[in-house]
């Protein structure tokens, strides 16, 4: 199927020029144009588009406003900014909104060619999870490939702020490490991550062996452990009583955490470590909501985190998909330590 591109710029002559240039793309996209943000939003609502290419500097509704709405209402549409605005602040704001590509308006034939190549690559890219580098392969696939090929390699896996390493020597798993974990425990933890990036590093033949189980045995254990965790989670109101199998439990055990609240849509929440969580949950909801709204009014990009720092303890709030988190932190942590630790805690939740 031919991809559909919507071009948005207040200059109608430029739109025609863009149309001509983009018609050279090998995927032969259908090209539509709009000279106002409002019209572009109406077109996106009326039919599905693959890609929106937008200018920033436009009267009435500027590009930042349009893109902010598009990212929220049409998250499946890929977005590109094509602008003559060179200020780094605007580039950061554009990427902060989740735009796929920020491109300065081409100033040479070579740049037009590069721009077209980038667009073509963007049009061909499917949204998919899995590990980047070997698209649509799981970590299990990657480890099996390396072991069957009897390779010697170090796999470095990055999952947000978490990193892990798996050492493979002559097709055998010999060690794994992540954060404070090592050996088989670290291996199981890394394999519980659902997505991320990995890179292959040169083998380290001198690495001390801590894993003696075969890779098949370890992968089987990991699969069994994950299956059991799913079954426990699905079937157990009783486990909710002591919270030991609560998905919040690993978050509450994270170093420095005093309490954790998962604020769900509506009034519902889960709590660990607080005797009377209701007032804190109410504060968390209200504060996130008011700063979210403020961020929109300021066009400051999505709200990432709020910290409340005090003489006795610290508390941090972070929106995350459909759940907002409120985490109490020990008083001796600095703001940047809290920011870093919150990222790790949220990654634990995803895993």
């Amino acid at each position, binding site marked *: 199927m031919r991809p559909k591109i919507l071009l948005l710029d207040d200059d109608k002559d430029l739109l025609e020029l863009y149309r001509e240039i983009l018609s050279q793309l090998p995927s032969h996209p259908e090209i539509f144009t709009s000279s106002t943000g409002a019209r572009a939003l109406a077109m996106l609502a009326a039919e599905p588009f693959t890609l929106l290419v937008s200018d920033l500097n436009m009267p009435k509704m*500027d590009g930042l406003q349009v893109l902010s709405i598009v990212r929220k209402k049409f998250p499946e549409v890929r977005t590109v900014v094509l602008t*003559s605005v060179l200020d*780094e602040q605007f580039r950061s704001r554009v990427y902060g909104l989740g735009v796929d590509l920020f491109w300065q308006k081409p100033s040479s034939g070579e740049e037009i060619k590069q721009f077209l190549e980038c667009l073509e690559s963007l049009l061909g890219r499917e949204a998919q999870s899995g590990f980047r580098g070997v698209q649509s392969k799981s970590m299990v696939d990657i480890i099996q490939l390396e072991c069957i090929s009897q390779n010697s390699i170090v796999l470095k896996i990055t999952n947000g702020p978490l990193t892990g390493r798996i050492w493979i020597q002559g097709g055998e798993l010999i060690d794994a490490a992540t954060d404070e974990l090592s050996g088989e425990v670290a291996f199981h933890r890394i394999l519980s991550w659902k997505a991320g990036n990995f890179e292959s590093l040169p083998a380290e033949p001198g690495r001390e062996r801590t894993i003696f189980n075969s890779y098949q045995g370890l992968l089987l254990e990991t699969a069994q452990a994950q299956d059991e965790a799913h079954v426990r989670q699905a079937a157990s109101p009783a486990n909710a009583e002591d919270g030991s199998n609560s998905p919040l439990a690993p978050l509450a055990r994270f170093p420095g955490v005093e309490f954790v609240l998962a604020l769900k849509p509506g009034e519902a929440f889960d709590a660990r470590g607080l005797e009377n969580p209701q007032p804190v949950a109410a504060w968390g909801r209200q*504060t996130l909501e008011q700063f979210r709204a403020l961020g929109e009014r*300021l066009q400051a990009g*999505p709200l990432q985190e*709020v910290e409340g720092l005090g003489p006795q*303890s610290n508390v941090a709030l972070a929106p995350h998909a459909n759940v907002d988190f409120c985490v109490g932190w020990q008083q001796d942590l600095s703001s*940047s330590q809290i920011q870093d630790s919150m990222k790790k805690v949220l990654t634990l939740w995803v895993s």
Partner: protein
Amino acid sequence: MGIMNFFAKPSAALLPLPRGSFTVDREGRVLASTLPQAFPNNMAEDIAMEVLEAFRAAQTAHLVVREVVVRFANLKLTARELRGGAIIFLVPQTLSSKPS
């Protein structure tokens, strides 16, 4: 060069994010400010009201909060409580200023 000139348009009229600090009293009125003059005063007061409300609501929830840090993708807001009012710092976040 014809095509290249054709791409050019008048310079951007986009409003940059504010950089600077300001102090407000307990009613949210701006007492002193180093914000750019182009940044609307009512927007500064809007920020102040949200910050003061966050301090007040924390007190209601029995949380002792003296400083609030709000991180947006493109702006960091830091507010310290000052005898009911607050001093508020605004720093735009660019790609090069963000920690990796």
